[in-house]
């Protein structure tokens, strides 16, 4: 898989707190790390193309938007069925994350995880009921973990500013 080079690592470090809200943000970023505006734009397009950047845009916080309820729902699904079911769950429009994760046995047998947001708890539970009937999950062992306090929420800090980039080989 693709390796991030020094130039790209510097770029990702420079923008991990967001783009400057100015008329020529890419020029400003470029100036900081010694790249031209065109280089910054080309590099962002390339990182998106190769899948390292998932999306570029406005990143919102659900809670502040009024989506105060959110639940992580986890199921224990047989390994040979989890991919088919997971893809179906991931397509529901109220699901914002859906992963297969390694079980943490014996305490935590669950391997399918999704996040459902809603304005109220009842909305989340209605969506969950819809999801379960659509995906045939009514009888499957699960846990619904509503969130309470949020202690931290920020973008992943992969890139300490200005470090050598050869450590960023992707797996």
């Amino acid at each position: 898989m693709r390796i991030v080079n020094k130039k790209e690592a510097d770029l990702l470090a420079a923008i991990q707190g967001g783009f400057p809200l100015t008329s020529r943000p890419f020029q400003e970023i470029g100036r900081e790390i010694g790249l031209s505006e065109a280089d910054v734009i080309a590099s962002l397009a390339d990182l998106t193309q190769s899948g390292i950047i998932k999306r570029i845009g406005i990143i919102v916080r659900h809670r502040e938007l009024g989506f105060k309820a959110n639940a992580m729902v986890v199921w224990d699904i047989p390994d040979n069925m989890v991919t088919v079911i997971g893809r179906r769950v991931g397509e529901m429009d109220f699901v914002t994350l859906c992963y297969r994760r390694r079980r943490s046995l014996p305490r935590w047998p669950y391997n399918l995880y999704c996040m459902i947001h809603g304005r109220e708890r009842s909305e989340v539970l209605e969506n969950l009921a819809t999801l379960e009937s659509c995906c045939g999950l009514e009888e499957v062992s699960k846990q619904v973990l509503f969130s309470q306090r949020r202690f931290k929420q920020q973008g992943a800090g992969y890139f300490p500013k200005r470090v050598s980039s050869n450590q960023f080989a992707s797996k």
Partner: protein
Amino acid sequence: MEIKNHNFSQPLTSLPDDLSLTPMDWRLLNAFQKSFPLVPEPFAQMGMELGISEAEVIKRLERLHKNGVVSRVGVVLRTGRLGVSTLAAVEVEGDDLERVAKVVNSFTEVNHNYERENSLNLWFVVTARTEERLMEVLTEIESQSGSPVYMMPMEENYHIDLGFPIH
């Protein structure tokens, strides 16, 4: 010919200070969560599409950022492509939760940390550059919290992130 819908936008002076959003704010948030224009003047381009000026786009984003609705305008990286990452959870007694949450937050490798309704009640995501550093952070959290840390690393992603449709 380009038709600009100036009626949609409110004068800058009338923007509320609180969390309430104007119809133009909703349009802005819905239109640009995933298709940020990669051009020299992206905010001017966004304004053109919305029928407002570059200055107004910037002003609205500054306000939405200030009141916390917008976390940033930037990139979302694909988990698992760079570095190593895991979801982790720990069971903490209610009156010890704030202390342990602070311990967890103190690591720059932790980017999400939530209290959830379960006997495993503190859930966080750790992302580090190497497997060794990841395990070091988890071990340190385990020793400072005094309870076992359970880890559930991602094995497959079933959701394509297109931002969050706001209805």
